[in-house]
């Protein structure tokens, strides 16, 4: 009797179900970690943004509705200007980063001596560029040691006129920071470039295409998925960077001024905006590729 029952029990756990159980056995540590320190955190952060902390000890919260959000937009004189500054900065830096990293990737992709050296130099900042060191370096930047980089010679300023000279100066000012932020993008572009089959280039050569035409007609369309990926990646990293003025402001209001609820609300406004921006990029990219298909 007992044996039969055991057999029946085993039958309930079919092969398929067993696979699911086994799968979750592998995934569960990760799920627990994410549930505690990410999902849980996100939820309580949302809750926090809609409440006010009545008592700091023990974190007694009280639901206040949209008051925190109202405060940010109506009363906080620092939030909106910083927000706009960060958005403008990101919108300028993202395309510049993409252009620079694509150029560098194409240069590295050629079989020239010293390839490995160049690759390592451009990639090294990715490893150092997080946390303490980056902060230190930007500190140096603030005191001017790195920022001096290059000033446009006065002669060029005369030639370029008043409209273009500040523009180019702005690019020169940003170049070090941009190059420091393009390590991952360069690698991704490099991967994309190496993925293009050489027969395409050979065919173009046979048809007498110039280098310029080859770039616009073959290279660029072929790596367009990676351009999109890089665009979103770059935007997200700029939005989330620790040296970003708004992120700094949020950290300051949370950890220095102990405005936990308002900080959370600011974080959510900011994140929602970043999310929408990424969505816009995706939709625009989808629209562009449809146009091309026609």
């Amino acid at each position, binding site marked *: 009797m007992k044996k039969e029952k055991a057999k029946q029990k085993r039958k309930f756990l079919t092969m398929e179900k067993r696979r699911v159980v086994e799968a979750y056995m592998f995934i569960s540590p990760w799920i627990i970690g994410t549930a505690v320190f990410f999902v849980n955190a996100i939820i309580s952060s949302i809750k926090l943004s809609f409440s006010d902390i009545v008592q700091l000890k023990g974190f007694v919260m009280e639901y206040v509705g949209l008051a925190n959000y109202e405060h940010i937009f109506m009363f906080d004189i620092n939030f909106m200007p910083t927000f706009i500054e960060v958005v403008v900065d990101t919108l300028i830096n993202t395309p510049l980063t993409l252009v620079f990293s694509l150029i560098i990737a194409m240069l590295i992709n050629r079989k020239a001596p010293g390839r490995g050296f160049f690759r390592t130099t451009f990639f090294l900042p990715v490893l150092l560029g*997080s946390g303490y060191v980056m902060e230190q370096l930007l500190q140096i930047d603030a005191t001017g040691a790195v920022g001096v980089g290059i000033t446009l010679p006065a002669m060029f300023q005369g030639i370029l006129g008043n409209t273009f000279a500040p523009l180019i100066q702005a690019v020169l000012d940003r170049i070090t920071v941009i190059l420091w932020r393009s390590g991952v993008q360069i690698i991704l572009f490099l991967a994309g470039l190496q993925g293009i089959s050489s027969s395409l280039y050979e065919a173009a050569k046979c048809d007498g295409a110039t280098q310029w035409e080859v770039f616009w007609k073959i290279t660029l369309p072929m790596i367009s998925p*990676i351009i999109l990926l890089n665009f979103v990646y770059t935007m997200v990293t700029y939005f989330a960077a620790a040296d970003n003025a708004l992120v700094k402001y949020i950290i300051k209001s949370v950890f220095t001024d102990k405005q936990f609820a308002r900080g959370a609300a600011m974080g959510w406004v900011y994140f929602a905006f970043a999310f929408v921006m990424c969505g816009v990029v995706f939709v625009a990219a989808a629209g562009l590729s449809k146009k091309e298909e026609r």
Partner: protein
Amino acid sequence: MMAAIKKPRIRLKKIKFGHTCLVIGMLALVCFTALPMVAMICRAFMPLDELYLYPPRIIVQKPTLSNFSDLLTSLSASEVPFTRYIFNSIFTTVVTVFLSIFVCCAGAYGLAKFKPKGSSTIFAVITAALMFSSYVTQIPNYLIVTELGLVNSYWALILPKIAVAYNFFLVKQFAEQLPDAVLEAARIDGANELYTFWKIAMPLLKPAWSTLAVFSFVNNWNDYFSALVYINKDAMKTLPLALQTLAGGAGVVARSGSVGAATLLTTLPTIIVFCIMRGRVMQTMTYSGIKS
């Protein structure tokens, strides 16, 4: 040395003029990239009077070791022995890296190879998590860590950083390429699932997790923000945080030199780890880039 310099020159003569321009342009870009690093190294050796020159200099004129000796004196003045900070940093970083690799590899393997019900939901959570700045979750995480009573313990620095979305994502890209046939063969030969994972899948995933080890090491080593939030006892501080507080923090005039020295000391391990693992990291990054 001479031969090394001469060789490219001979080649350059053969190559067209355009290529020479190209190399020069590349070197210019390299200069821009290397500038902060050079500045960092030089600042560690700068005497105080040079640090405050105007206009500021990047290259050091009269290098001294006084910054390092300053740092050492302030270190020996503190109650906690310096080795304790090194131990704290190494212990938390190594444990985090190991646990993170294990948890992320197991999860990615389970998700990619078993494709259980709900896997698309999990993947959606991962992609969402990739977009979040860690600062958004920092406040609630602080509350959670406080609630768990982990403030001022090693676990506060380890636990929140195990289930990292980026690591999971990278390994999953690789795990999907694992040949089913090999795993199937192991199962037919009577290996249980854990054995298959540990002895078959993990060795095959080695390029992925060795890269991850480097990234994870570098990030956790550099991360002084979470130590700043979770730790307020001197004896539990990690090296970057300890060095920063001992050096007086950024912006303090009197010890600017020591800050430079401390920065250099903090970056050394990451550079060493990167140099050892360089080839592999490059390979994996290029490879995973194609797939994503």
